[in-house]
């Protein structure tokens, strides 16, 4: 405290300015000590979501496959590319398609931006679904993580709806008829079906009103909701004690505090575990490592990998842009977006059960899973033998849905007749 009392010369202040500014932003220097690692994680706004120490099991790539992180990064990519696309888009039936042509032809980086947005959106739907499968097959929804599973299912639905609303915006034949088909499926709901459809489209058919509604949902409402639920999702991960892992008695390692001279060794328990298990100061659970750098490296690895994949896909394949909308000439068959083709396939057998009944039951069952399956055991292990029945049931559900989507995508031709894609 001695320096504070000593006034400095103006030159000294100026000389120290960069350093002072830097230190005022980043409270800690690049951590080299264990204390520093803890403090960095704890005090940095972007990092404080992480625990100070994470369990080794959490970092195993074969356990999580990084699917949750990939979903997050795809969402961030979507937000970023989406904001840039927003500068060029006009939600008007007269202009939207022309704007697409401009993006493809003239706007700097327009094609790449649109491709990234398109493929990230498709990717996010797939990855979020796979993430859900991962969580199920590792039994990670069990107590105390039931509610986080529910939040996850809500996020899946929001992702689907976000992708669906974005589908209309290019205002080409693909968009128009996919949304027409999708909205028709909504209309099969009993009693409120046509009202829901009207609410969604703002009209009896897809038109200017629908475009505006989908636009507002797509660029404002759904991203905000997804952000909110993602925040809850992450918050709950921390509060529920990190990712699920097998019940194993972790040995507690004693790290004696040295009170005289130098840094105390070991972590600061309260920084490490906000809720549980409570650890005495000076004791550290075994099998854990510092988040800095192990967890951060893993995250950056997944981030770079995701960006690389999306970029390679985006320069290799162009996002489709079909004819301008022609209300009088539906393509045959008119198909919904691929992730709804399972629904459309079921609708072809029974409008109500395929379009409304079964999907509603499926979503309800998904939401109820953690409350129906109350038996402990098998957490944190892929395809645990203790969970044979549950896993078999869920695998059946997944396989049936994937098969329906494959049939709807590749095996359905004009008039929804079976065709061979080969």
């Amino acid at each position, binding site marked *: 405290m001695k320096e504070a009392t000593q006034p400095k010369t103006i030159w000294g202040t100026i000389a120290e300015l960069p350093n002072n500014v830097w230190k005022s932003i980043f409270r800690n220097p690049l951590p080299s000590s264990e204390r520093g690692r803890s403090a960095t994680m704890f005090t940095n706004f972007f990092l404080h979501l992480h625990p100070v120490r994470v369990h080794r099991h959490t970092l195993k790539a074969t356990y999580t496959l990084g699917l949750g992180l990939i979903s997050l990064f795809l969402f961030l990519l979507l937000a970023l590319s989406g904001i840039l696309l927003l500068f060029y888009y006009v939600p008007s039936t*007269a202009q939207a398609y*022309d704007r697409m*042509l*401009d993006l*493809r*032809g*003239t706007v*700097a*980086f327009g094609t*790449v931006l649109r491709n990234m947005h398109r493929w990230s959106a498709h990717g996010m739907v797939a990855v979020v679904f796979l993430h859900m499968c991962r969580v199920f097959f590792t039994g990670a929804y069990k107590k105390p993580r039931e509610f986080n599973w529910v939040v996850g299912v809500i996020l899946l639905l929001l992702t689907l709806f976000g992708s669906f609303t974005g589908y209309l915006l290019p205002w*080409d*034949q693909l968009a128009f008829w996919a949304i027409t088909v999708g909205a028709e499926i909504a209309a099969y709901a009993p009693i409120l079906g046509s009202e829901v459809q009207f609410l969604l489209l703002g009209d009896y058919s897809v038109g200017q009103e629908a475009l505006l509604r989908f636009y507002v949902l797509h660029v404002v409402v759904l991203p905000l909701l997804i952000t909110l639920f993602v925040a809850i999702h992450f918050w709950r991960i921390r509060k529920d004690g990190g990712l699920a892992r097998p019940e194993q008695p972790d040995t507690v390692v004693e790290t004696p505090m040295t009170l005289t001279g130098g840094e105390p060794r070991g972590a600061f328990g309260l920084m490490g575990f906000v809720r549980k298990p409570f650890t005495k100061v000076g004791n550290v659970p075994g099998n854990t490592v510092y988040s800095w750098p192990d967890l951060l*490296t893993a995250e*950056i*690895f997944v981030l*770079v*990998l995701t*960006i*690389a994949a999306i*970029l*390679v896909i985006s*320069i290799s394949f162009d996002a489709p*842009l*079909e*004819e*301008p909308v*022609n209300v*009088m*000439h539906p393509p045959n068959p008119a198909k919904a977006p691929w992730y709804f083709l399972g629904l459309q396939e079921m609708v072809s057998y029974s409008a109500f059960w395929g379009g409304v009944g079964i999907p509603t039951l499926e979503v309800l069952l998904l939401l109820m899973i953690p409350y129906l399956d109350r038996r402990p055991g098998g957490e944190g292990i892929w395809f645990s033998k203790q969970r044979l029945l549950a896993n078999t049931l869920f695998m059946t559900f997944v396989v049936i849905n994937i098969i329906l989507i494959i049939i709807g995508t590749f095996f359905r031709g*004009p*008039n929804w007749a079976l065709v061979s894609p080969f």
Partner: protein
Amino acid sequence: MRLALAVASIIVFVVHVVVFYDQFFHRWERHQTAYFEQARTQATNDAEAEELARRGPQIEQIIVTQFGESQVDRCVTCHIAVDDPRFTEHFHPLKTHPYSESLGDLQVEGRWERRHKFSDFGCTICHDGQGRGLEEHYSHGDDHYWPMPLLGYVVHENWNENYKDKLLGTDYMQVKCAQCHTDEGFAGTPHVSRGRELFFKKSCYGCHRIEGLSESTLGPDLTEIGKEFSLEYLWESIDEPRANLATSFMPKFNMTDDEVKSLVIFLKSRRGKNYTETQLDLYRARLEVGDEQDVAEGDAALAEAEDPVAVGERLISERACTACHKLDSVDGKVAPDLSFEGLVRSNDWLMQHFINPRTVVSDSIMPTFRWDHSDFEAMTAYLESRTEAPQVADAAASYREFCARCHGEQGAGDGPIMLYLDPAPRDLTKASFMNSKPMERFKESIRYGVAGTSMPPWEKVLDEQQIDDLLEYVFATFVDQPRRELRERSIPENNPVAMGPESVARGESTYLLRCTGCHGLKADGKGPNSPDIVPRPRNLRNSHFINSVSDRRLLESILYGVQGTAMPPWIDYGLSQNDVGDLLNYIRSLNKGRE
């Protein structure tokens, strides 16, 4: 993991390099650089050289706002020399747009002056293609999804092999000339004028609507067809109507390639609103479409000079009647056989039917053609002149010759043209119906036909013995149950309830309560249940049919139902004979003109 991270980072970096390279080294920039280099060496005076020195590569565009919706053409970004007369000998894209008197260009003191200045018109207004793009593939409309590819010299890579060769050529440019030069005889657009003629001559207008030209609704509206489909699609659809739409019942017209070409060019030029018509013009055209010009002018004059039979024969073959109908060996497979139509139908019937088919067959799909009265007379005369009845050996042969086209080879009412007939031909295999009606009724139907339907009277073709044999054949071959004794029912010959407004009102309320589900609110047989019912409920406004049927038959059908159909016996549902009498009066009141 470090290695994987490094590889992924390098990939990200490389992709960025590629993207940035793409962004900053465009092909159009190379074209422009080449253009400026050559133009500078050819600059003749200082001002020009200075001007050229000042200009550098940039996206060039023409924004056209004076023809309706504004249009952005960036074609001149690559085709930067279009208006520079020094580049006539160069290759595309650095080539001067040709000057030509046929385009209205004028030579003034050795220098050409354009009639259609690019700064006023842009490029796509004449050439089609996609003006906003900067990549050749997209801006030339080679992209499969762009409905308006460059007209003239570029065609789709992925077009149908059969039509690729036929779609080359500058003739197609006329499509766009006609957007402004709408006057019918415009010298610059002979194909459009011819196509327009063919549209009427080949009877296209009978089924298709084009705003301002025709009003029929049987086929798709062609008002904006040119905006929606490529040349290839149009060609294909005329050549083989079922190529693009499996359910189409448009006939094959077997036109020559040259005719199809003109028709396609005409159709491609129909884009709803064109550049010269104002909203008021369109409205006026819509008002006037009813009193359309006499399409086949001149034929009437000929008819006086020539033998009407010969004229009629020529007209029938020229106007593509056989695109739907059968005449001798030519068969359109949509409509009835005309080979002995003149023999079975009366002169009056034919004339009435020509003038408006729906006055005699209420639900006929045949278009109303706006031809001259004398043309119809000639065609009637020709049909009437065919008086020779075909010789048939036995009942089986006469069934094949006369009945199978509608009633089907196996008598199931599913002959080749069955889909296009309303009411549909009777299913003769349905024993419950066939065995519930007296023989005399079938004989009458054959002898005198069924009024208001496509069943013609056969009395001039088949004698009594032949009709008996035919019926015997039908019952023996198709009805697989022995004929039962008919139950005698006491039904009054005439309606027991006197006709009057009160009776009609009572009948109407019964009708609304009991009958609308199938026969519909309008009594046109198109009630909400009708799509699920075979045979379809009767159209009760088919006056020719209703007026030809006796009170007794209608009373019986309502009271005791029609076996083999969805019509239930209403006596079981509590309708008394008087209730049915009121109903009958209501139905009669819908159909005027009964003697």
